[in-house]
């Protein structure tokens, strides 16, 4: 039973990884690419690691997989946020379909 659920979680994680990379090559802008791929790839890899934990149980490898899941789920949004901020401050403009730029307005007002 555990192995069936782990197999299903691994397949769902593979699908999420693939759709994240598809958004990475498909969307028109740096910010859209971060938005699409960071969440999808993080959730997909966490699904794969949790499926591995369900396969292994509470052994050494399973505990290591849980540690890796915790680390990724903490650090991936931090790195995506830092990359978006660095991309804006390095001068990359949003694409021409964009309608709102609140961070740029705030920087113009000096806040």
């Amino acid at each position, binding site marked *: 039973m555990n192995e069936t659920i782990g*197999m299903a979680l*691994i*397949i769902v*994680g*593979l699908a999420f*990884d*693939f759709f*994240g*990379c*598809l958004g*990475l*090559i498909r969307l028109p802008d*740096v910010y859209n*690419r*971060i938005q699409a*791929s*960071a969440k999808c*790839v*993080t959730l*997909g*890899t966490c699904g*794969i*690691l949790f499926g*591995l934990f369900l*396969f292994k149980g509470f052994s*050494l*490898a399973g505990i*290591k*997989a849980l*540690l*890796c899941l915790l*680390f*990724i789920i903490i*650090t*991936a949004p*931090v*790195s*995506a946020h*830092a*990359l978006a*901020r*660095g*991309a804006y*401050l*390095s001068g*990359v403009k949003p694409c021409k379909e964009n309608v709102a730029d609140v961070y740029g307005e705030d920087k113009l007002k000096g806040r």
Partner: protein
Amino acid sequence: MDRTVRWFIGALSILGVAIVIIYLPLPSMMQWQSNFLSRSFLWLLFSAILCLWRVLRGPTAPDRAVAIDMLGILIVGFCAILSLPTGRDWYIDIGIAWALQSFIGIMALAKHLEGKDLDE
């Protein structure tokens, strides 16, 4: 080229790669490449090739940085899925070390893109 034609070509190529990964018998040198689970890391390799395409074609530097970040997280999942059919648990250790090193490298890249030095 027309938009519909490009969509059709992309969907057809993805379907072809999926069929090759799932059904075609690979020339396997090792015993563990037989069932679906041990073959599904090829799907992650295909996703990594898409990331490398963005590294090659990205117009600006932050595009390439984002693609490198996603490639690092993908490789962690790759190591995790490779430890199941082979039965070698130290692949997860490689995954943990890769996640740590990728996070530190991406933070340094973001700091550099922001226009500061590394000790500010």
